[in-house]
């Protein structure tokens, strides 16, 4: 085992901002985002890929950032929970739905849920109950019992759908 491995330079974009950094190969993406880029909204709950709290989008797909090395994200475009709301503070419709449906309590697992749901609704704007459960099944929440999160996903899908049809209406 090497005592230390040489750090490598990586370049990536997170929430639209370009970064260049030196990382040790063994640094997980979660630790790099949190420690290296101070994006502490991504939470670490189990570090073995079960709880889903650390989900981030890498090139558009939701992944466990504890199960990825930072060096693997070289060249990638990422989005973390910090990238969801607009810069003026306006919440994303998924976030709004969480507020309205009481879809969070302690909020620690929530960033992972938001990212996973974001990916789901981007790829499948009106997902079936089965598709929703398939995705949420990979995210653990100990507070809510999930019922309010299910309601929030349905509500968010409706909000996003309404926004899409409004913007698709000619003259709107």
């Amino acid at each position, binding site marked *: *085992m*090497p005592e230390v491995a040489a750090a490598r330079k990586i370049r990536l974009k997170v929430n639209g901002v370009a970064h260049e950094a030196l990382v040790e190969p063994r640094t997980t993406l979660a630790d790099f985002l949190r420690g290296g880029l101070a994006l502490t909204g991504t939470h670490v709950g189990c570090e073995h890929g079960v709880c889903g709290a650390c989900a981030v989008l890498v090139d558009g797909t939701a992944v466990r950032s*504890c199960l990825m090395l930072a060096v*693997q994200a070289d060249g990638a475009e990422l989005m973390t929970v910090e990238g969801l709301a607009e810069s003026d503070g306006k919440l994303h419709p998924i976030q709004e739905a969480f507020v309205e449906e009481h879809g969070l309590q302690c909020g620690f697992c929530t960033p992972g849920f938001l990212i996973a749901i974001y990916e789901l609704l981007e790829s499948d704007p009106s997902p079936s109950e089965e598709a929703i459960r*398939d995705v949420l099944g990979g995210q653990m929440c100990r507070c809510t019992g999930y019922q309010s999160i299910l309601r929030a996903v349905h509500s968010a899908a409706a909000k996003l759908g309404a926004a899409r049809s409004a913007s698709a209406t000619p003259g709107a």
Partner: protein
Amino acid sequence: MKPAPFEYVAPTTVEEAVSSLSGCDGEAKLLAGGQSLMPLLNMRLARPDLVVDLGRVAALDYIRESDGRLAIGAMTSKRSVERSGLVASRQPLLHAATVLVAHPQIRNRGTVGGSMAQADPAAEYPAMAVALDAELRVVGPDGERSINAEDFFVTYLTTALQPAEVLTEIRVPVLAPGSGWAFTEVARRHGDFAMAGAAVTVTLDAGGHCADAKIVLFGVGPVPVRPRGAEQAVNGERPGEDLYRQAGRKASEEIDEPLSDVHASAEYRRHLAGVMVRRGLAEAVARAAAARGDA
């Protein structure tokens, strides 16, 4: 829970990957999707000197059909397989096995080759590969070779891959006309590793008797288990609940030494395997009958 130090290379071709592996003095590990290796690294249960990341070998990400077979690159994600219309229509058993793997967020990263090489006895893919008589293409310092799925899985977490070999492709035949199939498993929670599962394929002959039955069990032994006695018991027989039950019993008796852990004793696993065979056969025969009707 942080990985021990390791050197890291990210080759862009299979050849570079092979030479990185063969050039390593100590232990080298291939990193595919990382969904099994990364937890082991984080727990320091895997402690390679060198990690060879296949993530940048773009040529290993594809799903193609040729000569009645689907060829899938080892670095194709399970998510791609799941979303492939080709897979869903040409080999639905592969599709069914894929969506039982964990959750979409894991399938986004987890690869076809990674699951094969990990060879977890409770995982879906090795059983799928054996059930479909898959051929695994491997490249090493001495060139390319192919290994039959049944020979590929040697024992618990161990494959026929040599230290400097890279699994590059898996080929599975498309579903034969008239063939029925099922992929069943029982897991504590949706998405967990199975306590027991069965992949089944079967056809019905002109007289409506079972033929070509193939049964592969997983979660019950160090590698996917093929209960040949149960298969034979089915072939030539008229399908029905009694036959399925009998085949299930036979299959569970054929298991050598089922695994035992906190979720299931060996005895319980043996029993569950029989239940999975029974249910799988019923489902597969129903599909075979439907396929015959279509034809």
